[in-house]
């Protein structure tokens, strides 16, 4: 079948309302106008508002000219994320053409993410991301947040016009489906997806995905499976194979899903969602190291995905790979710079985690960490110059870094000033800063001030049980993580010996644990209890009793809500009776 041969450049094309033919020429000849008229009222474009975002004025101008030639009458321009956001707040735009790279500040991808969260994009509005075609990792990352379309630079007016037509057509066809999706009305999503699948071959693939998603959401797993097998019977399709393994995960078959997803990724390493399901499958089997490996693989493909980076931080920390966790945190800070993801807490957590790593790494890495801490502290102050938390944290960091003697006059004065300042505007404190402040006093062995801070911060954050619990732990064990781990191990060994009634040997382990963690209620009470048992067979020993009393009195800070409080009271009473 020959659709049509015509003079000059003529392409035959099927649009919404049947066959139309259009010539592609710069001057918007009659044929292209005819094509536009056939799918939508051409005058519609006049009323559509467009926003073009690019940091280069000449590029904006070129795109604007093209759009005006296409028939749009309102084309606004912005050179960066902030002015674009301002324009989006002021005017409802129907179409946004945004370059990925916007110079300093957030990029196009983060802008789309932010606008969706702030509801600045109407459901029917279209967002097109413009990218340079050489950076495929950027394209893959950008596609993950699902812009309506993406254009690679450079593009001609014809390219733009064709994409615009297709885009508006797609939106018109898909809008009812998207509306149902928004309401999570899965039976309707399934019905419309089937209709689109039958009537619009161009959108068949997207419709099939929505259809399977709707079946999965309704827990019609067998039906979804047989639909997917039907597709795969015709030919291999990466997404369909991935969805089959996703269903296996839902059917609690993580081992089989793991094998299948690894095969998918070997064949199609850009299928990002397959990495996420694989990670889920591995997590379900407690394969921590493999989880980390596959997260790293996914991040190498699409390095700008913030959720995956956050997941990597948590997984690497669980795997005790503190260096990897901190490298991921550094990448996260860079990704978050000037975006809605940037926060003071993120900087502070990073610095604290670096300090923890420094307690268990070699000298070379320790030096690197010191430089990184200084750098991160500086960046925090630059990003949040007038923030009370940033200032206090920075002061505390300086105190922690100084190697001054505990009686150094300037050192003592700095601590005194910091202690007073910590309670000014206490309501403005964020948990990370509060915990770091208290930690600073404990590390300086100023236990009374540390305890006072914990007491007041616990009141301040009483609505956040997790923060209260962290403050309790800090108070009980104000020591570095590495020492905490060692003390925990010694305590466990002591408990084993105690259970075997080997009290004398257990005391030695508890004693070593106490030397590392001098305020830990569990360890102190185990130590005292072992001595009490030992004295049952050896008889009373005045020196031992005095020493036990001295040790147990370190727990004076325990509040009556603490789970060891009752045990502490009872044991203290027993000792005092002796």
């Amino acid at each position: 079948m020959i659709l049509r041969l015509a003079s000059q450049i003529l392409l035959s094309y099927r649009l919404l309302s049947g066959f139309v033919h259009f010539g592609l020429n710069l001057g918007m000849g009659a044929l292209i106008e005819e094509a536009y008229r056939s799918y939508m009222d051409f005058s519609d474009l006049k009323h559509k508002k467009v926003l073009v975002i690019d940091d280069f004025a000449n590029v904006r101008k070129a795109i604007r000219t093209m759009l005006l030639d296409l028939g749009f009458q309102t084309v606004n321009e912005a050179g960066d994320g902030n002015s674009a956001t301002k324009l989006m707040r002021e005017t409802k735009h129907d179409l946004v053409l945004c370059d990925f790279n916007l110079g300093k500040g957030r990029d196009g991808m983060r802008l789309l993410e932010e606008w969706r969260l702030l509801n600045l994009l109407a459901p029917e509005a279209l967002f097109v991301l413009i990218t340079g075609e050489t950076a495929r990792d950027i394209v893959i990352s950008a596609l993950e947040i699902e812009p309506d379309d993406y254009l690679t630079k450079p593009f001609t007016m014809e390219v733009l016009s064709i994409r615009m037509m297709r885009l508006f057509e797609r939106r018109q066809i898909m809008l009812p489906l998207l509306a149902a999706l928004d309401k999570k009305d899965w039976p309707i999503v399934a019905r419309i997806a089937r209709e689109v699948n039958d009537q619009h071959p161009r959108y068949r693939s997207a419709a099939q995905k929505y259809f399977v998603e709707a079946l999965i959401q309704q827990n019609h797993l067998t039906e979804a499976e047989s639909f997917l097998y039907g597709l795969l019977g015709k030919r291999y399709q990466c997404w369909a194979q991935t969805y089959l393994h996703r269903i296996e995960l839902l059917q609690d078959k993580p081992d089989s899903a793991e094998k299948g997803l690894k095969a998918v990724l070997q064949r199609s390493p850009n299928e990002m969602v397959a990495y996420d399901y694989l990670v889920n499958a591995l997590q379900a089997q407690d394969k921590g190291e493999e989880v980390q490996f596959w997260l790293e693989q996914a991040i190498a493909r699409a390095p700008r995905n913030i959720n995956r980076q956050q997941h990597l931080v948590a997984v690497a920390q669980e795997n005790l790979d503190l260096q990897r966790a901190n490298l991921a945190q550094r990448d996260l800070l860079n990704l978050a710079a000037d975006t809605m993801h940037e926060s003071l807490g993120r900087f502070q957590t990073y610095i604290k985690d670096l300090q923890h790593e420094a307690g268990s790494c070699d000298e070379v890495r320790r030096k690197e960490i010191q430089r990184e801490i200084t750098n991160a502290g500086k960046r925090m102050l630059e990003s949040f110059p007038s923030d009370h938390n940033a200032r206090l944290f920075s002061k505390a960091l300086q105190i922690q870094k100084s190697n001054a003697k505990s009686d150094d006059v300037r050192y003592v004065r700095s601590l005194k000033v910091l202690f007073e300042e910590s309670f000014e505007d206490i309501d403005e404190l964020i948990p990370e800063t509060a915990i770091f402040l208290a930690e600073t006093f404990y590390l300086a062995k100023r236990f009374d001030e540390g305890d006072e801070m914990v007491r007041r911060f616990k009141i301040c954050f009483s609505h956040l049980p997790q923060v209260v619990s962290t403050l309790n732990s800090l108070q009980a064990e104000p020591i570095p993580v590495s020492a905490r781990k060692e003390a925990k191990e010694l305590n466990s060994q002591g408990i084993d010996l105690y259970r075997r009634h080997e009290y004398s040997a257990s005391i030695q382990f508890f004693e070593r644990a106490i030397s590392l963690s001098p305020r830990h209620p569990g360890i102190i009470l185990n130590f005292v209890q072992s001595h009490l048992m030992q004295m049952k067979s050896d008889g009373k020993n005045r020196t031992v009793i005095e020493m036990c009393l001295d040790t147990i009195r370190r727990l004076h800070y325990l509040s009556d809500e603490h789970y060891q409080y009752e045990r502490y009271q009872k044991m203290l009473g027993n000792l005092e009776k002796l």
Partner: protein
Amino acid sequence: MDIQTIMAATVHDVKNSLGLIDSQLNDVIKRLDGSDRDSAQEIRLIQLECNRINNGMVHMLGFYKLDQGTFSPSFAEAMVADVVVDAASRYTEMLLSLGVSLTIRFPDGDDECIWYLDANLIEGLLGNILTNSIRHTKSQLIFDIAVIDGWLNIRMTDDGAGFPEAMLTILEQPEPLSFQSGATGLGLYFCQEIAKLHTNKERKGFISLSNNEQTLGAVFNLWLP
């Protein structure tokens, strides 16, 4: 910085420069059109050479990635006509200016043919072929899209003098790249590699070249499983 990043950055810079040259040449053409059509046409040919440089950069980076095993296609279903139109639409102005018509035909009547392919790579491949064909055709370029024996066939025919004899067999040579003649065959070799990335069970994509027996024009065939 690794060599791939350096190459990608170089390609990016060169492409930006080429984009700028292209846009400036377009401005000159706009001024010349009507008053000096011959010069305008000469500039179109310069633009075509810019496209060839652009393709060369893409090939270089592509080959490097293929060699390193970091070149990963993204396959999905796409309407074949869309892919061909996207490739052609980058050349519309040039075709118009040179008086070359471009037609897309569907010999088996299926103008809504959907195929599983990497649309970006195939669009690039077709653009590559178009860059060369535009230089050699007289007045027309025809795309025929059909499914034959379970293969997608995209055929492009021009009405020029056809491929030279040496070119017709270049892909069958053990060392397809040659510096002996003016054309290295690099572009075709790249197209062949892109086609080969498309597989379906035992089948693997390929390209073939021939000359039309009647018109003698060049015929380029892309076969995807």
